[in-house]
């Protein structure tokens, strides 16, 4: 430090690591060029942006404003809410069941074969993660017909992708000591998994499961939009009939339910983490 001070007497403080460097200006210029180019490429009508907020306000105030609360205070609608909950529950459950082998095979420290099983498990998890739940829902509706089964399957794939990555990361972070000890006793792969790995990730897996359920419920509220049952179907019907006040009411109900599920899941996760 002292040497540096002597050889560099004009040390000045500056906010940035590389002030005035070409890289900085180049990055900003690149961003500006990209912005301009993409606005041009996407044909965004810039002149309409300014009038847009007023129009959006008008749309909200005139068409959506008094949400038709009576419409959602209905036994039939409550039935749909329960169906949505069941769909989310089953989807998350099946997804988590699928996740256990995928997370096991897809973690590079515990996978039985790094060359063969690991890339396959990773690829499955990644494709489930990459493809949006809506696309799964549409394809399953096309194959299986309308109803809640395609919704459950779409949510299963969605949850597999969501939880698979988290679970694999959790397994990769374990302490390898117990695994080595188990292996030294001559335990086979299942025994190692059951007695050395599982006790270490049990709490984390419970947390992931609760979180997955929360996310699955959020997805389940709209999976029905393309015919897979639940509240989404209700929403779609009213959107198509341009019953905007009912749409607003359904959205309010979704927001309230998601807020409740978020609070419950945060509470449950906190409790689980404390048990650690």
């Amino acid at each position: 430090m002292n040497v540096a001070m002597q050889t560099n007497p004009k040390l000045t403080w500056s906010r940035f690591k590389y002030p005035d460097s070409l890289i900085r200006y180049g990055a900003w210029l690149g961003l500006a060029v990209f912005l301009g180019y993409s606005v041009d490429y996407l044909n965004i009508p810039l002149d309409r942006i300014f009038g847009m907020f007023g129009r959006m306000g008008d749309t909200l105030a005139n068409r959506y404003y008094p949400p038709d609360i009576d419409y959602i205070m209905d036994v039939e609608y409550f039935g749909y809410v329960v169906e949505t909950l069941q769909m989310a529950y089953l989807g998350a459950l099946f997804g988590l069941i699928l996740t256990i082998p995928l997370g096991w095979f897809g973690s590079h420290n515990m996978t039985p074969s790094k060359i063969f099983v690991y890339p396959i498990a990773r690829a499955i998890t990644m494709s489930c993660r990459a493809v949006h739940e809506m696309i799964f829902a549409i394809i399953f509706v096309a194959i299986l017909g309308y109803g809640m089964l395609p919704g459950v399957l779409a949510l299963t794939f969605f949850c597999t992708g969501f939880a698979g990555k988290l679970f694999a990361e959790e397994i990769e972070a374990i302490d390898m000591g117990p695994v080595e000890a188990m292996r030294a006793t001559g335990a086979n792969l299942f025994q190692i998994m059951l007695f050395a790995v599982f006790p270490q990730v049990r709490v984390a897996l419970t947390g992931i499961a609760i979180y997955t359920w929360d996310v699955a419920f959020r997805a389940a509220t709209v999976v029905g939009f393309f015919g897979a049952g639940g509240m989404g179907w209700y929403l779609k019907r009213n959107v198509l009939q341009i019953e905007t006040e009912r749409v607003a009411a359904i959205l309010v109900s979704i927001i309230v339910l998601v807020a409740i599920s978020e609070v419950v899941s945060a509470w449950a996760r906190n409790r689980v983490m404390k048990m650690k």
Partner: protein
Amino acid sequence: MNTTITDVAARDIIIERIMQRQRRARMTTALAYGFGLILVAWSIQVTVIDDTDWARMGSFGQVMETAGQFIGLDFALFADLLHPTIETLMIACLGTLLGVIMCVPAAWFGAMNITPFKPVTYPLARAMMTLSRSIHEIVWALFFVSAVGLGAMAGIFAIAVRSVGFIAKMSAEAIENIDHGPVDAIRATGANEFQVMLYAILPQILPQVLGVVIFEWEINIRRSAILGLVGAGGLGLVFFRQMNTFNFHGVMSVIVAILFLILIGEMISHWARKAVI
């Protein structure tokens, strides 16, 4: 070491109590599992068995036959997919950018330690975050399509509004966890609130927030790929068209394009997050 009768009795009582507690814990666990199983059975009964039109679906072989129609790619379509793929990527980028701009006030109001007027601005910001996160992107896109018309702009707004919640929540948490030394130091020099934010808070949270933004950008790519389903441009529109013209191989081509785009996004985000942290 002369054990009296009362000692033995006391020990027995303690053992009995521990056993009782264990028995009760086991009962609770069993009850919880039983309840879960009943819930599963009931859900399967209602959603899968009752609600499915088994007659329409046909036998297992027929289902497999229907599913088999999806296997295969329409190679002629790939040339037409280039434009929507770039569009999707751009919608994701611009939406994330706009979301970051919109999240500045939300994160500022939503952080307990710097919110300007706690009783009003804090709950307001938290409500905004919940609102943004709880409504699905499809619904946001529907709303913006009805407000600003068909096209990429609706998609950008939908993505932006949808990503505000997560980015703002994580940024607010980062702000709440900052070290207060620099804040006090900068304030002691007579800096105003804005300067404190720029020089004391922003440098501390920047790496964390950039990581969150990159993560959200990656998610936004997969979101923007479906916004076209409700008319907001990008790959979703092609997907919808292929689906409605029963060109199932074309559908698979679109999915391959989405996977390709997301693979690129994941690679960039992996690299960028390493560069940031």
